């Protein structure tokens, strides 16, 4: 069940190019391409063209001289992990990285040189003795080493850390981005972008912020520790052994009365759900059993029965004391205002506003009315000659009832309202109308018999 892709690190939408490379692609599946590269000693990487299923085996990696990573949406670059990791697995005899100094900062001697230190290790493709990189050709328990260029010091360990020690995890390791790819019982991890041997919901494109790369241990679901699906069909998932940082890492600035974003930093005392259901204490297992034990989630402040968000849900939540309602959100907690401070005011709808505020309520800079990017305006100066659509100032050319607005410089936000508020004392007249003739087209109709037929 093990995929040959497990031996590679994938760089998406990237192609490795080099002047010395001829573009020869064989049409095979990506797994077959990986298999071929694994069995060929000189192969260190491959470009895979997803459009043509073209496989280009490479003797080079991105660390080789005269190579270059080039963005190409049709390609993924797969490079052997041994060449990419800056940490070691086991005794590090498979290490093929590019560190060339010892742990006490002595420069390494080139392996093909016999001076200043004579030795019997001849470079070959199999032992990977190239340049003056740290290697472990004799399976030394101390890991990769090298002869030094200092005549008085023959050799030294390079002090390259084991992957499980190279990067520690804080809290529950949700932000762990290290290179451990085996579970604590030694099982190899399944690649996150594969659905075998275990089918799972954690597809990397659905979780862009979780760094679900290759088959490295991660914690996308706020478990106790980083984990992975295993390549053993009999074991779905297991925790990985990763060193804990001595410090608890950078703690979030906490909020008490309101919450920001998903409310992972909320530390207030709300203890009912939006609709008033009382919360269950986190240290209790009744009426609902759960795994969010306060002692296992030190950074999450699971105190009393307060609403918290220990798992990256949509908002603070809690288990409830109602037997038939396991958990519910505490949406009644107000969101902290994320609007910027206003700098000016307007009367009416602001259609006469001639001020110079040029940022939105979220603080995004306005786009010039005369510019065509990042948004192509449908409202521009020549259409509204009577409105002074100057520079990037907030205006209200279409008499928007919610006030002056502008196109923004953020491509994700076409337009937004500005950091201006109605002037004090400018009470808008009641605007609720009651039109006599209303006509609706192509909406709001349903087949009333549909559900009844089904129920029968």
């Amino acid at each position, binding site marked *: 069940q093990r995929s040959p892709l497990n031996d590679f690190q994938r760089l998406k939408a990237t192609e490795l190019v080099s002047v010395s490379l001829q573009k020869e692609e064989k049409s095979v599946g990506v797994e077959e391409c990986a298999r071929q590269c694994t069995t060929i000693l000189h192969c260190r990487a491959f470009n895979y063209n997803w459009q043509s299923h073209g496989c280009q085996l490479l003797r080079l990696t991105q660390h080789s001289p005269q190579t270059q990573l080039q963005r190409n949406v049709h390609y993924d670059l797969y490079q052997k992990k041994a060449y990419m990791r800056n940490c070691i697995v086991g005794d590090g005899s498979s290490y093929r990285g590019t560190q060339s100094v010892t742990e006490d900062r002595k420069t390494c001697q080139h392996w093909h040189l016999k001076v200043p230190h004579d030795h019997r290790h001849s470079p070959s493709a199999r032992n990977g003795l190239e340049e003056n990189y740290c290697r472990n050709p004799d399976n030394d328990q101390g890991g990769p080493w090298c002869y030094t260029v200092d005549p008085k010091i023959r050799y030294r360990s390079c002090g390259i850390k084991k992957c499980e020690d190279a990067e520690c995890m804080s809290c529950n390791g949700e932000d762990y981005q290290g290179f451990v790819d085996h579970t604590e019982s030694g099982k190899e991890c399944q690649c996150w972008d594969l659905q075998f041997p275990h089918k799972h*919901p954690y*597809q990397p*494109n*659905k*979780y*862009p*912020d979780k760094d679900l790369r290759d088959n490295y241990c991660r914690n996308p679901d706020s478990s106790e520790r980083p984990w992975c699906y295993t390549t053993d069909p009999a074991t779905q998932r297991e925790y990985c052994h990763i060193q804990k940082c001595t410090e608890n890492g950078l703690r979030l600035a906490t909020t008490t009365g309101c919450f920001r*974003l*998903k409310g992972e930093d909320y530390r207030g005392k709300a203890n009912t759900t*939006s*609709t*008033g*259901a009382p919360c269950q204490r986190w240290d209790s297992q009744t009426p609902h059993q759960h795994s969010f034990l306060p002692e296992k989630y030190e950074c999450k402040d699971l105190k009393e029965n307060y609403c918290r968000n220990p798992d990256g*849900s*949509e*908002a603070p939540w809690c288990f409830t004391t*109602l037997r*038939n*309602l396991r958990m*519910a*959100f505490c*949406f*009644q907690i107000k*969101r902290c205002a*994320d*609007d910027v401070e206003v700098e000016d005011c307007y009367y009416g709808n602001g259609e006469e506003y001639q001020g110079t505020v040029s940022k939105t*309520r*979220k603080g995004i800079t306005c786009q010039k009315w005369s510019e065509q990017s990042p*948004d192509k305006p*449908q409202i521009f100066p020549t259409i509204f000659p009577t409105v002074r659509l100057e520079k990037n100032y907030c205006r209200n050319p*279409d008499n*928007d*009832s*919610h*006030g002056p607005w502008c196109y923004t410089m*953020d491509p*994700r*936000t*076409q*337009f937004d*309202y500005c950091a201006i508020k109605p002037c004090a004392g400018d009470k808008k007249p*009641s*605007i*609720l*109308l*009651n*039109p006599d003739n*209303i*006509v*609706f087209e*192509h*909406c*709001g*109709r*349903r*087949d*009333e018999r*549909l*559900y009844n037929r*089904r129920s029968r």
Partner: protein
Amino acid sequence: IIGGHIGNSPWTVSIRNRKGIHFCGGSLVKEQWVISTRQCFSSCDADLSGYEVWLGTLFKNPGPNDPDKQAIPILKIVCGPSESLLVMLKLERPAVLNPRVELICLPPEQYIVPENTKCEIAGWGETRGTGNENMLHVAELHVMNNQECKVALRGRMKESDLCTQPLQIGVGACEGDFGGPLACLTHDCWVLEGVITPSRVCARKDKPALFTRVSLYVDWINKVMKLS
């Protein structure tokens, strides 16, 4: 929905997180646009990759081969005017309309729904023992005059709120229904007059229920659909 019945609301959509779990409701106003509430989302430029809108099914957890279910990824979120607490969700592709997936009408700008107008709320939220937790439920409510509502709620309402009449038995929205529609019948068409907003007690007896009055934001809704 508390005190409702299993029913058909082809414009009510289920909003799902990356694990496919329902967490809020919404209303389909155009093939590629859904309206919901701000409280359901982390920010106005949240990365919603992996989040989906499910339409066309009556079931909260439909089987994998449910032929009626459409699952459409959410492309982007746009927040409404600050006091509105509304959001619009643009879908990655248009929903396919059929008898199980329909558009709800938008009210005319600034329109006041007449008192006593028949309305419905719909959702896959909690029933608290009053129904089948796996089915879409619908409950009937009637519009209440704003002045009377203000008195009943001792002033705790805004002009941008819409009230429905209190009932002596508990009927109303509950956990998981937030963001869903208050659809009212006008000239034989169902119109999105309100959006179910959080921070309300589930189906409180003898108290009016509050919704965001959509007619005040129709100009914004049309502008977003036109410009985005």
